[in-house]
């Protein structure tokens, strides 16, 4: 006897599938922004389920900052190969070389991804871009629509958002305008990990704990590697750590953890007391409105 009730994860999955199908049915040329991080992987996994047994009917785009963990790139390539999707790479390094953008003094390439992204969207004629943003991540995201309208400069205007009622999404745009679509809007970090575990999804091994040589810097732990070498006077130590987010390799910190399996990660996240960005991202700590400002400029 069935109760006709979906578990909340299946409910979220169904909602995300609905969003994918709606965009593909109504937009001319969508793409999926794929970083190789857990959220974009879950997004791509659901996209594949939404159109099975057909292939994912849009390309994936990686805005490549040139500061990637190799295992993340490897994971990206496994996904592209497995699903047979087209990969578009928009290179930040190449944009720096030809003078479109300039790196910030602290080495962050977070903000300068935006012009590269916008240029690639325009050049490829994409009128919709799926992003893995979740509303639980950050206060500005909490107010963003699932279909987030962007003007012909790619900008988000939080005061001028389209009302989003029921599941009746409005993706109508004029030439040059576009929408960002966030199929995982209602997922939390715990939902993402519970789902990765339940579906046994391939994610970069950075997310799992192992012993790493790390250095403490500004209250965060950075792995000692080519992107974050030891500075004068610093000493490295070996600790069991894992990554909670995967951003630029030179700015993403790891956290102390012994969670070396997906099950243990789920249990850890269920008990954790810091947000993922607060715990691991140097680039998000700049100001109370850092994310809102970046989104206004056209960031994901």
């Amino acid at each position, binding site marked *: *006897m*069935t109760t*006709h009730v*979906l*578990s*909340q*994860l*299946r*409910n*979220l*999955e*169904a909602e995300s*599938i*609905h969003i994918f*199908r*709606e965009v*593909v049915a109504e937009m001319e040329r969508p793409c999926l922004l794929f970083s190789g991080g857990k959220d974009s992987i879950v997004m791509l996994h659901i996209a*594949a*389920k*939404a*159109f*099975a*047994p*057909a*292939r994912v009917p849009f390309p994936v785009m990686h805005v490549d900052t040139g500061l990637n963990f190799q295992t993340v790139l490897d994971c990206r390539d496994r996904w592209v190969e497995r699903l047979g999707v087209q990969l578009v790479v928009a290179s930040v390094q190449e944009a720096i070389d030809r003078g479109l953008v300039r790196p910030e003094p602290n080495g962050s390439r977070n903000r300068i991804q935006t012009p590269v992204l916008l240029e690639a969207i325009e050049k490829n004629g994409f009128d919709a871009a799926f992003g893995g943003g979740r*509303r639980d991540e*950050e*206060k*500005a*995201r*909490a*107010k963003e629509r699932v279909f987030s309208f962007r003007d012909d400069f790619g900008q988000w205007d*939080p005061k001028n*958002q*389209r*009302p*989003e*009622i*029921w*599941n*009746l999404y*409005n993706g*109508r*745009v*004029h030439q040059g305008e576009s929408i960002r679509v966030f199929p995982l*809007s*209602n997922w*939390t970090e*715990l*939902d993402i990990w*519970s789902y990765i*575990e*339940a579906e046994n999804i391939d994610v970069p091994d950075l997310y799992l704990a192992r012993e790493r040589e790390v250095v403490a810097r500004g209250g965060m732990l950075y792995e000692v590697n080519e992107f974050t070498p030891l500075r004068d006077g610093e000493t490295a130590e070996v600790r069991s750590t894992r990554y909670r987010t995967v951003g630029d390799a030179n700015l993403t910190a790891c956290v102390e953890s012994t969670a070396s399996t997906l*099950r243990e990660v789920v249990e850890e996240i*269920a008990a954790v007391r*810091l947000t993922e960005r*607060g715990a691991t991202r140097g680039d998000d700590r700049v100001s*109370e*409105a850092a994310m*809102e400002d970046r989104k206004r400029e056209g960031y994901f």
Partner: protein
Amino acid sequence: MTATTHATTFAAGPERSVDLLRFATAGSVDDGKSTLIGRLLYDSKTIFADQLESVEQVSRDRGNDYTDLALLTDGLRAEREQGITIDVAYRYFATPKRKFIIADTPGHIQYTRNMVTGASTADVALILVDARKGVLEQSRRHTFLATLLGVPHIVVCVNKMDLVDYSEDVFERIRAEFTEFAARLRVPDLTFIPISALVGDNVVNRSENMPWFDGSPLLSHLERLHVASDRNLIDVRFPVQYVIRPQSHDARDYRGYAGTVASGVMKPGDKVLALPSGLETTIASIETADGPVEEAFPPMSVTVRLADEIDISRGDMLCRPNNTPAALQDIDAQVCWMDETAPLVKGKKYAIKHTTRWARAMVKDINYRVDVNTLHRDEGATEIRLNEIGRIQLRVTQPLFVDPYRQNRQTGAFILVDETTNKTVAAGMVGGLPHSV
């Protein structure tokens, strides 16, 4: 594999039996709504340490004497600058029993459209009443909008009980007054809880200050509320969203109709009728990426395969031959107008989206405008402006397959879109008022 196993083998861990409840809150600056949400998040241990630290820091910087929990939810720069909530904010928390999605909306009359947005998908509406002030115009407006949007459960939180000495008389007086008002509306389920959001009485933990109250604290009420039967499992409605036709050699003959079940329960072998063609066939199988299922029910996203090849495309609808929606080109509807730049006027044309179907619609007539505070009908109204509710008649370029909104929140709903600006300008509900006022 049955639908049941599909749903329950999904997660082996603690997520397994957790279902989802969406609730909407509406309130203004001083009625304690933000404090209540802050309290729910805080007492359910959902606020993260760095979020709390940031809110405490900002409160100190501003010279506040207390930690302003509203800062947790007011995310936009303009909101923090003006100290008000402008937009719908979505918040998430979970207990071992349920995951909750809160649509937190501002309560002022100028934000009616945000309240309508939040209420459109809500299972429950929380209405806050200040125990010192009683049932105000605002409480009436929120309740009216919640019932208009078909929210099946309303919970009235009589807040600030600490400021009225936890008086049972005060609570009972408010309950009586509210019940009398609500009798004029269609409220399927109405619950009253005396709380103090600031101190925490009856929010997560039972209050020792109000031994006379024998109901549940708010959180346990929300955890136990039975929402499964709110869905329409009778009328099969499957709006076709997308046709899946793989462009590969091994699946050349595959044709599946993808969509989200709007209502009803579908099974392989069921006879179905396709609209608008009126052709009948049988469901051959219902598929998901995880394999076939024996049943599909709302809100599952599935792919339906049919026994016969009939011409079906996006915007069409599958239903049962003996239970069909009305195919209407003339539609009687309630609308909430959401555009600040121009009012709805007679004769104007809009794009209309209903389930997965787009068409064009012309406003044939405006029957009346409702004063959302007094519920008074203005039958001489010639336009409906921002945040106003009205009853109108539409003529649509092609038939829409509709049910009254009262019976079906999916197939009774539509939006209007301005064809010049592309903005969503109205939320519409088919079939007139959900009650007689």
